[in-house]
Each structure stands twice: as structure tokens, then as C-alpha cells.
């Protein structure tokens, strides 16, 4: 395996995307890393666990080492054991065993084959369901999928919704965050319903993308960003409507019961417009 630095990777990304800002380059790399982690961990084969006899033999060998080497070897072995344990726990979760209580014997998976884990946050609003019904989409559509319908194979899981472009899309980073913090779901729903109803009221052909991103200057600081993609709108008009929508969404968020949580969320929530 060749050695290379992060700087080299960034340089390559910049060369391949000459028009992109540093912000976009940074986000692109971070997103790729995020999206790669789960498949990597899922496909990783953990070392076979030593048998009790092998472990005991190893302990004997360690006891024969000098005092300093003994401690070092023990520490290394424990560290490796902990790392494998952590990876095993992640793999266990990726196998679909997330349950209300971890000891309930869950299905793991139903499948009869290897497969990358599914990417799904089963967040689906009433609006989505109504839209599906209106469009005559089968009742068997389960949640949103972004899979290319052309790639449906005998093993493709459920149908995607190929009938229209999603007006409102949730980014993967935010989907992950929602799965970790369900309290945010109600706030995200408010943002979605406000955005959708605003476009309907003003007969706008806009689409939205809500996601969580890292701040360029402070990567540990995560922000939630709603990006408006205006179509067929004049620049000045878009700017005015953007301002109006911002006020509407923040007003709706302000109506939430938990004022402290909304205040905290608002500190890291931004509405941006894609004016390219």
C-alpha cells in the first residue's frame, strides 16, 4: 500500500475541482470519509479470537519477559483487544441489531448473502405519504431511498421513488444525527413543512437540502444548513423570498414547546441559498 498524506489528497481534490471553494473541498472530503466508514467497518474481517488455550499460552510467554517488556506487551495486547471489541460492537450494530434493548434476540439480518448495510433513516412525513398516494406509488414503498431505479436487481431492497425529484432532501450526516437524537426530528419536521408550505403558497419551483456540515475553520463545530435551490426565480426576488422564508421558519421553530432546545438549535442552524 502506498503512503500519502492528507495534503496530497486535498491537492488532488482541488486539481479535480478547480472551481470549488475550499469549503466545498473540505465538505466533499469529510462527507466521503463519513460515507466510507460504515461499509469499511462492515466489510472488515476481524481477527479470529484466540482460544482459551492459546490465550493462556500467550500469558505464560509474557510472564517470561523482562518486567518492562512484560508491561509493554500486556498494554499492547489489551489495547488491541479493546480495539477489536469496539469494532465488533460497531459491526454488531451495522448488522441491523439496533434494538430497543440490545439483549432482545433480533433478526440480525434476514438475508442470505453479503451486502453493504442499508442507508436508511425511516423518516417519512405525512406529506411524503400523501404525495406517494397521490402519485399512485405502491403502498410497499418503505421510507425514502436514493437508489438509482435502473440498478434494481433481484436483491435490491424495496422500491425507490423514481416519479419525481424530492422537493426536500435530508443529507446523510443529518440522518445519522437524527437517528442519534430523535428529539431533533420535530424541529426538522417544522423546517420541512414550513419550506414546503412556503413554496406552495408562493408557487415556487424550489427544492431544499437540509444537512449537517462541518465548519471549515473549526471542523469540530457542526452546523445544520438548509440550502435553497431556487429554480426559475429572479435574483432579487429570490433574495427577498429567502429573507421571508428565513423569518417564517424561525418563527415556526419558535413555536416549539422546548424553548431552550430551539434556542440551542438556532445557534447552529443556517439557511443558505444556492445562487449558482
Amino acid at each position, binding site marked *: *500500500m502506498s503512503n500519502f498524506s492528507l495534503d*496530497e489528497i486535498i491537492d*488532488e*481534490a482541488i486539481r*479535480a475541482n478547480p472551481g*470549488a471553494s475550499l469549503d*466545498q473541498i473540505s465538505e*466533499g*472530503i469529510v462527507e*466521503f470519509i463519513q*460515507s*466510507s*466508514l*460504515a*461499509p*469499511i467497518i*462492515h466489510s472488515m*474481517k476481524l481477527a*479470529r*479470537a*484466540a*482460544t*482459551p488455550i492459546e*490465550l493462556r499460552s500467550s500469558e505464560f510467554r509474557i510472564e517470561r519477559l523482562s518486567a518492562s517488556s512484560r508491561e509493554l506487551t500486556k498494554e499492547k495486547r489489551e489495547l*488491541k483487544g479493546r480495539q*477489536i*471489541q469496539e469494532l*465488533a*460492537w460497531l*459491526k*454488531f*450494530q*451495522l*448488522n*441491523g*441489531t439496533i434494538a430497543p*434493548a440490545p*439483549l*432482545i*434476540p433480533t433478526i*440480525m*439480518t*434476514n*438475508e*442470505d*448473502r453479503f451486502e453493504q*448495510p442499508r*442507508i*436508511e433513516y*425511516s423518516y417519512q412525513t405525512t406529506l411524503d*405519504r400523501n404525495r406517494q398516494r397521490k402519485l399512485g406509488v405502491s403502498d*410497499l414503498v*418503505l*421510507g425514502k431511498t436514493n437508489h438509482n431505479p435502473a440498478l434494481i436487481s433481484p436483491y435490491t*431492497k*424495496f422500491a425507490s421513488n423514481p416519479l419525481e425529484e424530492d422537493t426536500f432532501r435530508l*443529507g*446523510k450526516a443529518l440522518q445519522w444525527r437524527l437517528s442519534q437524537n430523535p428529539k431533533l426530528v420535530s424541529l426538522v419536521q417544522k423546517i420541512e413543512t414550513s419550506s414546503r408550505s412556503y413554496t406552495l403558497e408562493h408557487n415556487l419551483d424550489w427544492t431544499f*437540502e437540509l*444537512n449537517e456540515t462541518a465548519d471549515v475553520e473549526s471542523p469540530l463545530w457542526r452546523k445544520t444548513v438548509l440550502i435553497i435551490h431556487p429554480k426559475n426565480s429572479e435574483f432579487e426576488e429570490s433574495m427577498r423570498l429567502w429573507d421571508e422564508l428565513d423569518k417564517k421558519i424561525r418563527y415556526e421553530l419558535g413555536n416549539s414547546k422546548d424553548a431552550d432546545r430551539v434556542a440551542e438549535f438556532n445557534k447552529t442552524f443556517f439557511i443558505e441559498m444556492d445562487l449558482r
Partner: protein
Amino acid sequence: MPYDSIIFRKDMAGAIKALEDDDVEYLNIAANRIMSNSLFGTEKKFVFPAFFLKDISFNLGLLRGSLPTSPYSTAKSVAMNYARSLSREVQNETFEPLTLWKSYSDFKMELRKLTLAPIEQSIYDTTDLEFSKSGFSWLLNYLQENLGSMEVPKNILLKGVLNEMVRLYRNHGTDLNGVLTISLLTALDWCNDYARAISTSETSFAKIVRDEIIPNAKDSLAALQKTEINIEDIDNLMWKFIVQWREYFLRYLELPRVVLSAREEPEKAIQLPEETKKKLTEAITKSIEGPG
């Protein structure tokens, strides 16, 4: 050619090999495979060893992620011994499910001690089977009285009951009847998970549960609440639920899960060259695997 002993034994050999290699994902797949293949034949009893192997897969996956190396190694060794003896038992074409259930129950009791948290090990070192029995009985009555509530989507009564039963088993142990109870309700719960996933509204969920789950839950309760459990009743119900579950899979494939992964390309404006992606992936893999 229907699913027969020869192909069944091949599938079993794959499962044992997976266990030897600590590959719990493949072990789970091999178990699923045996249960699916059983649909193509008439021999019901093949599903039982598969069900037990699937349970091993779940437990070892959980234990590997929660136990340090040494206790996990012991647990795996116990599971390995059991799986090998199970494999030997099913080599005989006339194997009886009851014999398998008994050895599975013994294995569960052996595994129990290894699933206890360090703080629990000295406290629950002996079993209290009578307490577990009364707890199971109470839970079955509770389930019977509240079956109707299963029609409410947010209600996960079956999982709640199973959670308490598994806790009782871990802390106090259980007998063969307890193992049969947990196994039967687990298979029913797999079907219930599909009912939840395939319904598109509260009304449709209620209908599916009313038509496809509650009648089976009633049959299970009737079989489990008898003074003396008839093993044939349990075997027939297990077969019925496993067939139903495999048929759900046939119709709907995998359940959607709340998972933290991604398969698609980034949605952002920039596109990373394939070579850069490959390098990044290698770097991440190398970083996670560590130098050793």
C-alpha cells in the same frame, strides 16, 4: 429435488466453518439459508438447528462487542463445542427435535453465566428457576391480556415481554420450557417486525397485526400456557412462524433499518477522483486496522 439431508448437511458445514472463523455474519446467513431452503422441502425439523445457529450468531456478535478478549474466547469456545455436537447430532437422518431442544437448553444455561456483567457474576452465580418460571408465567398472562395493544404502531409489547424474559433467563436461568417460550416469541417477533415495516399507515398496521400476528400470538399462548407443554405444538408453531418470516423476506426482502452508513456517492458539488477515493479508503482502513 427437494431440500434433503445431503444439502442440509452442506449448509450446516458452512455454518460450522463460519463459526470456527469467528464470522458471525456468515453464520447468520448460513442459518437463514437453511431456513429458506427448508421451504423447498417437507422436512420441518431442519429449521431447528438453523434457529439455534442464528441465536449463536446473535449472541457471539453481541458478546464480541461487549466482552474483553478472554471471556469472549471462553464464550466462543462454549458455542463452538455446542455447534459441533449439534452438527454431529443432525448427521443422523432420524434426529429428533426434542433432543435438539434439550441440548440447546443446556447450552443456553452454560452461555448464561458468560453473558453476565462482571458486577452480576458473583450475585447471580446460582439459578432460581422457580422465580424465572413465575416471571415467565406472569409475562405470558400480561401478553394475553394486552394482545389488542399490539395493533398500535408505537407499542412494542412483544419486544418488551421478550426483553424481560431474556433478563430473567440471564439473571436466574430457565428450564426447557423457558427456552421454548423465548424461542417461539422470538420467531413471532421477527414476523411482527415485518408487519411494522410493510404497513403504510396506522390502519394498515393494525390490520396486518390483527390478521397475521395476533392469531399466531394466541396460538403461542395457548401452547405455552398448558400445564405440560407439548413439544409438537411448539415445533409446529415454530415451523409456521419461520415459514411466515421467510415468506415475508421473499416478498419484501430486507427490512429497512436505522443504520449509519452510506452506499451512495456524496451529494455535494465536488467530485473526488476515483484514485483519491481509493487512497482515502485505504488510509481509513489502515488507520482503523492499526499497525498490528
